[in-house]
């Protein structure tokens, strides 16, 4: 796999991963979002869904590339895609903080334009009690924030020089938390829908398959190691 091809593919992947965000901006720009009765709800669900889709795509890379050594190069896109999962997760968190909880974003912007940026802080102080309340009492928000914090930790330790500084083994251990983040994300989804609503089941099934693939591989690898580690039979020559 030539270096140029990898760069070209990465460019394409950037475009693909940014496409949902571009679509959202497009809906805002052409007024379609304004026609939606509750655009905040729509944006929250849109960003949440894409976080999960891209997270599942990240988790699919390793099981996929193990199918054949010829597609081993897929792992070189894992960081790129994983960081986009963090990107959408952050958009989702920002939607919750700035649009959902009553932060008057219009007034805050207006204040910046008129040269009195203090309004930004004032608005924050206004909504902080309700966010703190949500964090203390609502399980689905706690588990959601927990998932985001994991993604944040993985994002900031993703550059190659950090990996070298940490040491490969430690880095590997930390980045295994991606499984925890994905599980927490799906639980967040189940805990926020109304009882009886089953929309999260598709993501749950895909996550289960991907995790099962990992477990199967790990089990098979261990079994294979054990077999090859046992001493060969001794043939005595007479």
């Amino acid at each position, binding site marked *: 796999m030539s270096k140029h091809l990898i760069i070209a593919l990465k460019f394409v992947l950037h475009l693909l991963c940014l496409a949902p965000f571009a679509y959202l901006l497009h809906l805002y720009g052409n007024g379609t*979002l*304004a*026609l*939606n*009765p*509750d*655009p*905040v*709800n729509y944006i929250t669900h849109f960003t949440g869904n894409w976080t999960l889709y891209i997270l599942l795509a990240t988790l699919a890379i390793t099981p996929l590339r193990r199918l054949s050594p010829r597609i081993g190069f897929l792992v070189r896109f894992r960081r790129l895609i994983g960081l986009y999962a963090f990107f959408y997760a952050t958009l989702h968190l920002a939607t919750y903080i700035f*649009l*959902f*909880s*009553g932060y008057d*974003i219009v007034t805050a912007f207006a204040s910046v334009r008129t040269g009195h940026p203090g309004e930004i802080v004032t608005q924050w102080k206004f909504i902080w009690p*309700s966010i703190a*309340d*949500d964090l203390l*009492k*609502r*399980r*689905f928000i706690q588990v959601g924030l927990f998932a985001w914090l994991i993604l944040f930790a993985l994002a900031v330790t993703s550059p190659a020089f950090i990996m070298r500084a940490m040491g490969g083994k430690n880095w590997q251990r930390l980045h295994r938390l991606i499984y925890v983040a994905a599980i927490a994300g799906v639980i967040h989804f189940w*805990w*926020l829908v*109304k*009882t*009886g*609503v*089953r*929309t999260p089941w598709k993501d749950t099934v895909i996550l289960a398959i991907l995790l099962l693939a990992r477990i199967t591989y790990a089990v098979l690898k261990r079994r294979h190691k054990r077999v090859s580690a046992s001493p060969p039979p001794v043939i005595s020559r007479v």
Partner: protein
Amino acid sequence: MPSRKSDRLGSVIPSSEITPKETFDKHRQSRRRFLTGAAAAGAGALAATRIPDLLRSSDEVHAATQLQVVPSKYTVPDAQTPINKATNYNNFYEFGTDKSDPAHHAHTLITRPWTVKIDGLVKKPQTLDIDAIMSYRPVESRVYRHRCVEAWSMVIPWDGYSLSELINFCEPLPSAKYVEFTTLLNRKQMPDLPGGFDWPYTEGLRMDEAMNPLALLTFGCYGQVLPNQNGAPIRVVLPWKYGFKSCKSIVKISFTAKQPHTLWNEMAPNEYGFYSNVNPKVDHPRWSQAHERRIDSSTFPRTIPTQMFNGYGDQVAGLYAGMDLKKFY
């Protein structure tokens, strides 16, 4: 009060027979019949002489779906929600669980012919035709706040008359302490019916709640007959309670001695109580009820504080005097 012609809702017949429209029509001028799904907008002789013509020339109101309504004293100062938002953001799970599903899928609902069965603890169980119910009393336009348990809200001009009028017609027995409403369950008309729910959708009220003048037996909104996704052709609207209490597409009204079985309360009793009065001090287990996102004509809903009883405390607080509303949520 002496019995008037208007107190009769068709002739009284056993519940095994549907009130024949011909019997009813005999006493009224002929009404024009509009296209499928539209209610007959004309009123009988009685109504025609009393109700002023309120047909608006706005192109939002189509001839086939307009209702003749009279203004009422029920209004709120809050800005109204535009009709396209109120009719495209609905919870009517029988047609799918996404907010946009009912608007896309409820066209399969057949609203004529439609009857409502009246049974339980009443003097005479019977079955009433929807058009007879609709022309029984003048239809008023009432602007109500509508608060969903999911913490969003709208302000909608509903068209109907007080539920108490129909209840009086039904003549419930003194032993009837509750009213139960049942929504249509028809798998052919509801191909997207989700599993995991104990259909049909049922809801209920205490008798004094049902008799409160605020409880609206509703046939329309915005001067038009109810769009299918809003619970056509007949629903109730209880503005002081969370929206799920306002049962849609009603096919049966039963009078019971015991508290009726309601779908959401059975589904998740710790989340949805029988009373479900709007109460900012009692949170849903998973989210706060202290605020709501008001959907009006602005692009983004504004977050506003939720009012006790959705602002209708003056009219309904008395119903719950002495009740622990944290216990009876």
